[in-house]
């Protein structure tokens, strides 16, 4: 009898966001078996997360319907904590789903693990009700009530606009949207968008949803204050500072590719992104990567990369049309990166007493600039908590110049029950305790 927690397939995909969905469609439509593992509550990833009681965007519904018309297996609420190549050349993925071990054996793997937000420590950033910007969006969509609450957004990049618009629509008193990039850079980028009038109209529509709120460029968070919960935020433009009373502060600095599983498999990374060739294949053969892990690019690029990865993983050729869409979107993303590049000021906000590793409560003063990230781990436990450096790792890279340490399984906490109920092999991964 087939064990539903020990699956075998041609291609295993990690992540059911746009890239994973597009890849799975192409694979299943080619008549090959595919299993998609995703940590979320349903397919769509962060960008297509539906609003509570609402529908997903139309393009999401179309892709998910296309996926559901195939024989692709999608496992939700399933967190992959290990992936390895076996002696046979096949890959084995290990995951936990509500305490139960799930394993997948596959000849090819597609990593579509998405992105997370970049958080940089500032005094007060650990106070409750200081959240991410995408974080605020996720909480809003899952039902957070913000009606009448005073909210400040401080961060960087195009994500600020839709989140500000959602907060305003939900009845929040949005007091300020602060973009760290200087006005001149943002303006130059907006001008360069003349080739993409749709994007400009989209941005203008989003902006019109919070017209009464100041959208200040060249302005960034300096500190947050409160007594057990955030009460105020101080922002600065480098010359003057301003303190604003608030109930919710949304602060983050752009997006970061999730590369843990790729690095675990030994895939080459360049500047924090997974390096891929024209077929989306990584430096490890039969391992593909699509979407944000190959460089932050948004939904459209993720879909195209997913399709290309899916086609390639089953040996089909990639239509020229897809390759040219990818090339043009990649050029735009490079301009976006330049426009919203982080000013050095935002990497030096922490004071000596500021916590830099939130899991282990390691403060800036506990660290020595002469150390490596490995020494920091050994001496202070920075990066050794449950988030496994997903928050502090990037922060310490910006602040101290420490490159991320090597990655080891399990890449995220998993219950022992999951290790014990793993049917594919009996060997618990190294480092499991």
């Amino acid at each position, binding site marked *: 009898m087939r064990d539903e927690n020990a699956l075998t397939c041609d291609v295993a995909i990690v992540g059911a966001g746009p890239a994973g969905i597009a890849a799975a469609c192409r694979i299943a439509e080619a008549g090959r078996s595919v299993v998609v593992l995703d*940590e*979320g*509550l349903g397919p769509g990833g*962060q960008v297509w997360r539906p*609003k*509570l*009681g*609402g529908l997903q965007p139309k393009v999401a519904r179309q892709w998910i319907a296309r996926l559901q018309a195939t024989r692709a297996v999608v496992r939700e*609420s399933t*967190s992959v904590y290990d992936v390895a190549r076996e002696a046979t050349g096949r890959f084995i993925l290990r995951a936990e789903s509500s*305490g139960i071990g799930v394993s997948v054996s596959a000849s090819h793997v597609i990593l579509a693990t998405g992105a*997370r*937000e970049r*958080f940089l420590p500032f005094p007060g950033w*650990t106070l*409750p*009700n*200081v*959240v*991410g910007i*995408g*974080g*605020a*969006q*996720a*909480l809003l969509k*899952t*039902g*957070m*009530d913000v009606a009448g609450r005073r909210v400040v957004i401080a961060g960087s990049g195009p994500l600020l606009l839709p989140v500000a618009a959602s907060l305003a629509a939900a009845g929040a008193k949005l007091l300020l949207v602060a973009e760290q990039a200087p006005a001149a850079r943002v303006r130059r980028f907006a001008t360069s968008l003349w080739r993409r009038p749709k994007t400009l109209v989209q941005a203008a529509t989003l902006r019109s949803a919070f017209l009464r709120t100041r959208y200040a460029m060249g302005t960034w968070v300096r500190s947050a204050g409160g007594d*057990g*919960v955030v009460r105020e935020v101080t922002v600065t433009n480098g010359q003057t500072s301003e303190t604003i009373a608030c109930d919710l502060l949304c602060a983050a600095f752009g997006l970061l590719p999730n590369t843990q599983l790729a690095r675990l498999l030994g895939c080459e990374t360049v500047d924090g992104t997974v390096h891929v060739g024209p077929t989306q294949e990584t430096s490890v053969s039969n391992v593909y990567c699509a979407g944000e892990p190959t460089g932050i690019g948004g939904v459209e690029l993720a879909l195209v990369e997913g399709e290309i990865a899916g086609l390639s993983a089953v040996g089909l050729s990639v239509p020229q049309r897809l390759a040219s869409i990818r090339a043009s979107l990649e050029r735009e993303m490079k301009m976006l990166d330049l426009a919203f590049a982080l000013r050095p000021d935002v990497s030096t906000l922490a004071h000596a007493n500021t*916590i830099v590793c*939130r*899991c*282990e*409560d390691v403060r800036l003063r506990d660290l020595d600039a002469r150390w490596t990230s490995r020494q920091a781990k050994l001496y202070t436990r920075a990066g050794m*908590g*449950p*988030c496994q450096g*997903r*928050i502090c790792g990037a922060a310490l890279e910006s602040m101290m110049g420490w490159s991320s340490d090597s990655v080891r399984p399990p890449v995220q*906490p998993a219950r022992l029950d999951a290790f014990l109920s793993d049917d594919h092999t009996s060997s618990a991964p190294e480092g499991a305790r």
Partner: protein
Amino acid sequence: MSGKRVDIVVNGKAISVLAGATVATALLNAGESGFRQSVSGEARGPVCGMGICYECRVTIDDLPQQRACLRVAESGMRIETGVPVA
């Protein structure tokens, strides 16, 4: 948004929350901002909203260290907040 609600128990107190909300938003809407106690005793609440940061960990039905943002609140669920990490 439909007004359907479910009843859960937070720190021994029964509350009614939006059906379909995650445990994280259910707690936030009920005025709970401190979800866990950090290793040095600070109150912490949700940050990333997507299972990355592990700041929203609570005890759900006696199972400790559950990420509140990844679970939907279900009728009869018992949740404990502010549990110090052993």
